[in-house]
C-alpha cells in the first residue's frame, strides 16, 4: 500500500521504504489495535467478567438470603442438576421450542423470500408489510397476541361467532394449547428475520445459472432444487444456527406471554434460571444451570463455525 511514501505516485514495490520514517509505520501497526480497543474494553468488562463470575458462582453454594452459608462445593451444583426433574423438563421444553421454531421459521421464511423475490406490482409495499414484525419487540409482540388470544374479545371470539372453531377458553391458560399459541406468536416476529436473510442471499444468485438450467430443460422445481437451494446452503446454515441460539437464549416473549405457565408447561431453561434467581435467590445453582447451557451452546457454536466457514478470506 502506498502509505509509507506520500510524495510520489510510484507503487511501493518500486523501492525500499525510506529510512528514518518509523513514526508512520509504527502508527500504522498500532492503528488497528487503537480502533478495536473501545470494543475490547467493553466486551472484557461487561461480557467476559460476567461470564467468569457465572463460572465462579457455579462452583459455590451461594444463596443471597443465606449469606453465611457460602461455600465452595465443587461440582455439587452440577450433581444436583442431574437429579433435578425441572432442569430436564425445562431443557426438553427448550429443545422442543428451538426445533419447532427454527424449522417452521426456515420453511415459512424460505417460502416468503422466494415469493417477494419475484417481480410483481406492489412488491416493495408487500415486502415492507411482511417484514415489519421484525422490528417489533418481545413485550410488544406479547401485548399484541394477548389482545388476539383473549377469550372474550380476541380474534377467536369473532371467528367462533361466524362459526369457525369454538372460543371460550383461553389458549394461553390451557396446557394443551399454550405451546402452539406461543409458537405462533414467536413465528410472527421470527419469520421475517429468516426471510430477510434468505432474500439477501437469493439476490446474489447469478441469473446466468437459471438461464443455463432452463436451456438444459430444467423446470421451475428442478432449477430450484439444483440452482437455488445449493446456492442458499450457507445462508440457511448460518440463519438456522444463529436463530437456534437466539431462540434458546431468548426469554422476553415467554416471560411476558406465559411466564413459563400454565403449570410449568412453557418453562424454558433460561426462564427456569431467571425464576431461580428471582424466587429462591439461589445464584450458585442458577449459575451452574447457566454454565450447562453454555456448554450446550458451545457445542452448537463449534458446529456453526465449521459449517459457515466464518472468518476465512474470500
Amino acid at each position, binding site marked *: *500500500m*502506498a*502509505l509509507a511514501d*506520500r510524495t510520489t*505516485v510510484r507503487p511501493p514495490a518500486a523501492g525500499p521504504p525510506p529510512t528514518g520514517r518509523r513514526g508512520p509505520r509504527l502508527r500504522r*501497526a498500532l*492503528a*488497528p489495535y487503537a*480502533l*478495536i480497543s473501545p*470494543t475490547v474494553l467493553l*466486551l472484557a*468488562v*461487561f*461480557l467476559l467478567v*460476567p461470564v467468569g463470575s*457465572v463460572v465462579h*458462582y457455579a462452583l459455590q453454594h451461594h444463596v443471597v438470603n443465606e449469606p453465611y452459608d457460602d461455600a465452595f462445593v465443587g461440582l455439587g451444583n452440577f450433581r444436583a442438576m442431574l437429579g433435578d426433574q425441572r432442569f430436564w423438563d425445562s431443557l426438553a421444553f427448550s429443545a422442543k421450542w428451538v426445533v419447532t421454531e427454527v424449522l417452521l421459521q426456515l420453511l415459512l421464511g424460505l*417460502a416468503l423470500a422466494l*415469493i417477494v423475490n*419475484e417481480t410483481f406490482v406492489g412488491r416493495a409495499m*408487500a415486502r415492507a408489510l411482511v417484514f*415489519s414484525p*421484525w*422490528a*417489533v*419487540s*418481545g*413485550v*410488544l409482540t406479547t*401485548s*399484541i397476541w*394477548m*389482545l*388476539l388470544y383473549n377469550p372474550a*374479545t380476541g*380474534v377467536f371470539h*369473532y371467528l367462533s361467532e361466524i362459526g369457525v372453531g369454538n372460543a371460550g377458553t383461553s389458549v394461553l391458560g390451557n396446557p394443551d394449547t399454550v405451546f402452539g399459541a406461543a409458537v405462533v406468536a414467536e413465528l*410472527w416476529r421470527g419469520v421475517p428475520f429468516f426471510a*430477510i436473510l434468505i432474500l*439477501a*442471499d437469493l439476490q446474489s444468485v447469478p441469473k446466468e445459472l437459471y438461464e443455463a438450467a432452463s436451456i438444459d430443460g430444467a*423446470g*421451475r422445481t428442478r432449477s430450484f432444487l439444483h440452482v437455488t437451494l445449493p446456492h442458499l446452503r*450457507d445462508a440457511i446454515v448460518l440463519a438456522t444456527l444463529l436463530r437456534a441460539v437466539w431462540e434458546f*437464549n431468548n426469554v*422476553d416473549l415467554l*416471560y*411476558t406471554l406465559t411466564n413459563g405457565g400454565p403449570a410449568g408447561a412453557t418453562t424454558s431453561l*433460561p426462564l427456569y434460571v*431467571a425464576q431461580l*434467581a428471582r424466587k429462591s435467590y439461589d445464584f450458585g445453582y*442458577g449459575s451452574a444451570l447457566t454454565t450447562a*447451557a453454555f456448554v450446550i*451452546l458451545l457445542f*452448537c*457454536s463449534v458446529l456453526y463455525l465449521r459449517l*459457515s466457514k*466464518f*472468518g476465512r478470506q474470500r
Partner: protein
Amino acid sequence: MTSATAVLPPAAARRGERGSRFLRLFLPLGLYLVFTVVPFYWMLLFALRPAGSASLLPWPLTLEHFGTVWNDMGFRVYFQNSVWIALLTLLFVTFFALMGGYALARFEFRGRRLFMLALLCTQFVPGAMMLIPLFNIFQTLDLIDSRWSLIIAESTFQLPLAMILMSGFVRNVPVELEESAMVDGCGRIRAFLAVVLPLLRPGIVAVGSFAFIGSWNNFLFALMFLNDPELQTVPVGLQTTIGENTVDFGALAAGGVVAAVPVVLVFAVVQKYLVQGMSAGAVKG
C-alpha cells in the same frame, strides 16, 4: 411448467402462467399478509375504539386510551427515557462499530482472527443469564438506577454483530479509492472521511437502525437495572399495563402503538437497506 408453455399457443400459455402465478405467488402472499397485518390491526382497533365497544372498525374513533397511557400511566416519561437511551446506544454502537469494522476490513494485524472469533462467540452468550453478574458490576460502578447501565449493557451486546456487519460494508468499498486519495496527499483519516464515509452511508444507516431498534425493544435490562419509575422505559411500562388479574385492553393497545411507532418508522426508513445490510455483513462475512 416450462415444457408445457413451449407447446401451448402464446395466449393460452399466458393464461396458464397467470393462473399459476396466482396459486404460487399471490395466494400464499395474501395469506401471509393476513397473518402479519391482522395482529397490527387488532392493536390499532383496541387503541382507537372506545372501551367496551365490540365493533370491528375503530368507530367511533377515540384518543382517550392514548391520553390515559401518555398522561396517567407515565408513558410520556417512559417514551423520553427510551428515546434518549436508544439514541445514545445508536451513537455508541455505530461509532465503535465503524472504528472496529474499518480495522477488521482494512488492516491485517496480529490477533485479527482471534478477535473475529471472539466477536462471533459472543453471539452464544446468553444475555438473559448474564443479568446477575451484570447487576453486581453495575452496582460496583454505582450505575444501578442510571440510564448508563442500559446504554452500556445494550452497546456491549450489540457491538459484536454491528462490527461484523460494518466490516462487510467497508470491504465493499474498493480499497483503491482510498489509496488514490492518499496518493493525492490525503492522510488516512481524511481519505476515510472524504472518500469512504459517504459510500458507507447505507451501511451506517442499517447498523444504526439495528442498534436503535434493539435498544428500544430491550426489556430485561431495564427491568433489572432500573427501579425508579421516573427512569423506566417503554417496554417495562407496557408490561405494567398487563395487570395481574385485570387487563385494560385499551391502555395495553395504546401503549403498544406508542411502543411500535418509533421502531416502525425507523423500519420504514431502513427497510430498503435491510436486505443489503444482511447480505453485506452476515452472509458473506
